């Protein structure tokens, strides 16, 4: 007791303690361990421990041929699987200077946007659930099932399809594809209004997300926070607009920007992006040109020696693919610049001086997928 009395007052008040939001936790969306240093209820600092799902994908890619690498890229960010595959295909096609048929570009773009919508649906479900509105989880997943059914019919698998291949797609789209996508869009446009009524306009939700987790634009650029998280801070970083690929240069869509820099802005960016994605699909779905679903490729794909880089816009941000090739059929070095890795690095910075309950909201608004971080 004497020791406590003799301590200066500031030292007694500065009792920090560490808690572990362990690898198994309902709201870290995967196996991520956060060691949070708290003072009372306020977060003072945060150390993420990654690597629980590190599978050595980059090392495996050095032994796999380019078509085999596609199957690995599915599993990096499983919610934007199509978009990851698209990056590899674009890089190979650009290096070999192959022009893919128009039909392929249309199909790939539509599949990409469907992937973006279903990723945002899952994000919305888990965001609502983390904040306590447990019903959101069921509504979002129910609507996501429609997209998964469309994919199952065309590609044979609900999830992790590996549908793209260098030169085109594995097989042609199912005859029902256009009809089902139309009916999905019609249904989802009504359902998304429900999402706004449950969460977006709710006073409790606004209080919990406005002013929480402020990320300035300079910090977003410096930390490399791309995607909807960066666009919530007013940084125009959409790869589809800055360096268009496939059909993105020819469709009309808006890049959704918000300047609030807080969790609420990041939330509203993703909600609006779902509308924009549906807009893009509507422009393309009725005009898919007939033709081949794949260009003629050699049996063994060898990239000329050199270094290549390809950027695509995945649902989480800018996915970069850096390949060093020595002329063989396997890449010499393949590096994935994944968006969640950079988004995670900013979590410490924006959670300082926030309450522990806000940490859950901030983590959910950055939309981290842990295999994307760990590869």
């Amino acid at each position, binding site marked *: 007791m004497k020791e406590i009395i003799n301590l200066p007052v500031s030292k007694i008040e500065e009792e920090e303690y560490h808690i572990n*939001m362990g690898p198994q936790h309902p709201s870290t969306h995967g196996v991520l361990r956060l060691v949070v240093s708290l003072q009372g209820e306020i977060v003072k600092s945060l150390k993420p421990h990654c690597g629980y799902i590190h599978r050595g994908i980059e090392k495996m890619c050095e032994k796999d041929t380019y078509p085999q690498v596609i199957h690995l890229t599915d599993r990096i960010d499983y919610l934007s699987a199509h978009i990851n595959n698209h990056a590899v295909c674009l890089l190979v096609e650009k290096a070999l200077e192959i022009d893919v048929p128009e039909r392929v570009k249309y199909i790939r773009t539509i599949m990409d946007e469907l992937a973006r919508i279903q990723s945002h649906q899952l994000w919305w479900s888990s965001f609502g659930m983390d*904040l*306590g*509105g447990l019903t959101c989880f069921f509504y979002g997943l129910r609507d996501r099932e429609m997209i998964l059914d469309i994919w199952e019919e065309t590609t044979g698998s609900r999830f992790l399809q590996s549908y793209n291949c260098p030169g085109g797609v594995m097989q042609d789209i199912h005859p029902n594809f256009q009809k089902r996508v139309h009916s999905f869009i019609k249904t989802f446009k009504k359902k998304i209004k429900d999402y706004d009524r449950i969460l977006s306009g709710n006073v*409790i939700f606004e*209080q*919990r997300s406005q002013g929480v987790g402020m990320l300035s634009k300079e910090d977003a650029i410096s930390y490399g926070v791309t995607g909807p998280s960066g666009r919530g801070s007013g940084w125009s970083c959409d790869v589809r607009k800055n360096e268009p690929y496939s059909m993105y240069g020819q469709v009309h869509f808006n890049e959704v920007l918000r300047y609030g820099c807080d969790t609420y802005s990041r939330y509203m960016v993703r909600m609006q992006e779902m509308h924009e994605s549906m807009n893009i699909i509507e422009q393309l779905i009725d005009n898919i040109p007939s033709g081949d679903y794949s260009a003629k490729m050699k049996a063994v794909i060898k990239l000329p020696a050199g270094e290549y880089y390809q950027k695509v816009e995945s649902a989480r941000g800018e996915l970069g693919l850096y390949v060093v090739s020595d002329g063989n059929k396997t890449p010499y070095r393949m590096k994935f610049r994944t968006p969640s890795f950079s988004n995670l690095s900013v979590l410490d910075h924006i959670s300082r001086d926030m309450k*522990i309950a*806000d940490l*859950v909201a901030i983590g959910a608004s950055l939309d981290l997928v842990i295999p994307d971080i760990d590869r």
Partner: protein
Amino acid sequence: MTFNIYDLTSFDKWIDQGLNSIMSPTWALITEMAIIGIVFLLFYAVVGLFLVYAERKVCAFMQNRVGPNRVGPYGIFQTIADFIKLLMKELVYIKDSDKLLFNIAPFIVIIASFMALSAVPFAKGLHAIDFDIGILYVIAVSSLGVVGVLLAGWSSNNKYSLIGAMRSGAQIVSYELSVGLSLLTIIVLSGTMQFSEIVEMQRNGWFIFKGHIPAIIAFLIFLIASTAETNRGPFDLAEAESELTAGFHTEYSGIKFAFFFLAEYMNMFLVASIAATVFWGGWMPFHVSGWAGFNTIMDYIPPLVWYFGKTAFIIWLMMLFKWTFPRLRIDQLLTLEWKYLLPINLVNILFMAFLVLMHWHF
């Protein structure tokens, strides 16, 4: 003996006379108390089980699912199966925990809600304790529940349980103020604290219609404050699954956890029945003064049905809250109480007092 479903006082008298004729008055009294105790225990258990099932069905309905439908017809035996499973679970003993406090904490919570429930009238003649300070007794006794919560957190020897218990304790104690003050508004209107008299005074119209504006405001505040007091709905930060821990009952397993769980549902039943009694007339049917024919028709429905119907409606509202809204943060929760509900409540009491003085109520 006439068993009149509309007025069970004759049934009570018949039991009383029967017992008094068999044994001495003291023993008759003790036997009566034992009978009431056992009936209450059974009622508590059955209603608790039913409420858990109802919650799962309501939740499923809101989430576009079916809910339990395998165990028994329409899944009505689901809770019994869960209960048996909990009974068979291993009781994990915590090292270095305070054994006595750890073991009695769940019982304190149950005893508090039990005692409060006994003062609420279910029908004319089905009223276990009829104090003349009924409302005060109920508020006082239900406050004992917070002692159980704090003891549970403290005796678990776990810093996260302690934090959760402190938060829960702060929340419950703050919102008790609002609960008490909103009930005070009705006492101002009725002039009495005795439950049976409050129900009788609503014979020609329920208080929520008699007291119009201030009574409606008082009811809304009571609804919000009692949802917060029972740690339910958007105010369940202390025990939320996606927060750090399960709050004060992290270290409890098996039957002790079942007690906390049951106590939470019975607390919900308790506040719903108090709201039904004080604002919506309790077991009194819906009467409009002056419409004698209408009133006679309303009287055909037995009082028990009225009572359980009103309570069920309010419970359904509280379940709707839980499954719709996201959670409030602890500081937002306390701000809501101290900066918004409390001032509104105080002004409302003044307003109601003014109303009563000027006879501007129905």
